[in-house]
């Protein structure tokens, strides 16, 4: 894992660019017969899927079907739950995420996360964005990194005159974009988003959706959402989960126009959920 910390973003870009010469798109995260549980309770059962590079992959399904559990396994955020357990394999660019060789702290340099509710630190806007690069020993121009991150999160124009004000003074939607800026300041490879718009109003939601469209060029995005329109609007691929199992995983267009399974069809047309 040590090489992950040193590997600059451009390295991984060129590597994936050369690999893309092969017919199939690159797989960034790959689950192989993955089963996740809390104690004896099984939350995700026997899931296998490949998440492709530089695409938006949506995970949809009714509440409690295991979307968050699956997503949080990808950057080992489940480690903080003492009863959480894992079977099967989960690979990040070939590295087994749950092997002893993988250090969760270093893994999270490459796999960032945005949460359901905006959770900025009670610090200034600037310090929020600079926080992670600083503790990870970033040696470049911090001011420039903060500006670039805020620009990529489509927040720069709104906050450039009040960088040193407390982040809590921002609106919910702005706070969520700040959290995205904070995550991309580490220049990650993958961004995991767990229902990033569920606490936001429709206008703020639309802005985040536009942002996700732009992020796709730079990052691999895995987006959990219970909002099917959102999945249809922003994602390239969609995985449908139901009661801990992966029912279907395909191109978003296929999933929403001619799904292969009856259950997917029922969910998408709103017959349950």
């Amino acid at each position: 894992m040590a090489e992950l910390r040193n590997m600059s973003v451009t390295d991984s870009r060129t590597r994936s660019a050369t690999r893309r010469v092969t017919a199939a798109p690159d797989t960034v995260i790959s689950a192989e017969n993955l089963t996740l549980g809390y104690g004896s309770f099984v939350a995700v059962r026997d899931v296998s899927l490949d998440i492709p590079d530089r695409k938006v992959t949506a995970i949809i399904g009714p509440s409690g079907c295991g979307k968050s559990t699956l997503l949080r396994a990808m950057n080992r955020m489940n480690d903080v739950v003492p009863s959480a357990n894992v079977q099967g394999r989960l690979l990040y660019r070939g590295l087994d995420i749950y092997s002893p060789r993988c250090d969760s702290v270093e893994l999270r340099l490459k796999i960032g996360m945005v949460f359901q509710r905006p959770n900025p630190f009670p610090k200034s806007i600037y310090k929020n964005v600079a926080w992670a690069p600083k503790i990870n020993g970033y040696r470049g121009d911090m001011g420039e990194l903060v500006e670039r991150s805020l620009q990529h999160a489509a927040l720069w124009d709104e906050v450039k005159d009040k960088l040193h004000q407390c982040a809590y003074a921002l609106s919910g939607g702005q706070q969520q974009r700040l959290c995205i800026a904070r995550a991309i300041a580490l220049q990650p490879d993958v961004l995991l988003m767990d229902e990033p718009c569920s606490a936001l109003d429709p206008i703020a939601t639309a802005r985040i959706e536009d942002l996700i469209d732009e992020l796709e060029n730079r990052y691999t995005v895995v987006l959990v959402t219970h909002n099917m329109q959102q999945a249809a609007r922003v994602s390239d691929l969609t995985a449908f989960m139901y009661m801990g199992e992966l029912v279907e995983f395909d191109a978003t267009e296929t999933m929403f126009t001619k799904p292969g399974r009856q259950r997917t069809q029922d969910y998408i047309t709103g017959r349950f959920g």
Partner: protein
Amino acid sequence: MVLVQGEPSTDDEGDRAMTTRVRWAEQLIRHALFACALLSIVTTAGIVWVLASESFAFFREVSPFEFFLGTRWAPLLEPRSFGILPLICGTFLVAGGALLVAIPIGMGTGIYLSEYARPWVRGILKPILEILAGIPTVVYGYFALTFITPQVLRPLIPQTEIFNVASAAIVVGVMIIPTIASLCDDAFRAVPRTLREAAYALSATRLEVSTRVVVPAAMSGVVAAVLLAFARAIGETMAVTLAAGMTPKLTLNPLESVQTLTGYIVQVSLGDTPAGTIEYQTIFACGMTLFLITLTINIVAHRVLKRFREVYE
């Protein structure tokens, strides 16, 4: 009731009697409880009144100027002198030294309890902390005098006096560790889990999460904890009198003996000073000074704590 006009049922009457009885009992309890509350207020007011009036009598004899700015405290010996600064100096020297001991250990314990300890370890440690807080303070004083000074300090630094600030500061520090640890633990646990998750997801280690997110977010809680512990250290009497001695002295040397405000009050209260004399009144002036110091610290601490609660609401 309207249905059975003019002929109220017996049931109904019974109900009413019962209600009246209950009401009456409730009134009684209400008044009794009010009396309890009143009693504690009256007691406090009475204490403040005695302090104030005796201090007033004192200040008719001794000018406040001499009292608060004089640098020699010798109210019992000729030539007399009523400068309280040596006592205040002794008090703050011991209490400040106690904070030097208690802040790092108390905060470290708080961080361990809230961020590192598994639930069962926590379940054992918290009660132990409370036991530590329940040890009679005279035991701490005895421990300082018979162990810390002769077995620890004097072998290290031979010129240490038998009674000295350092041993008092160490035991008072140990005494207030539970206060700081427990209040810090509460303040740290009040930091929302979502902030910790945000930090972990940004590749922070547990130590970075603790020191760079949890502690700063709970800073006002930490400050309040330290202030409350400080007020306790200033009011501490028995251990300090036993360990630091009874030599009023304007000094910063922790190896010397000093006297604190509380220590002086004990000395005079235990002696045979006749009531009404100026020597007797000094203890009320000292008591008033002590009261004002701890009151100020407590008010500031509660202000800080209140601000802290508002942050996450």
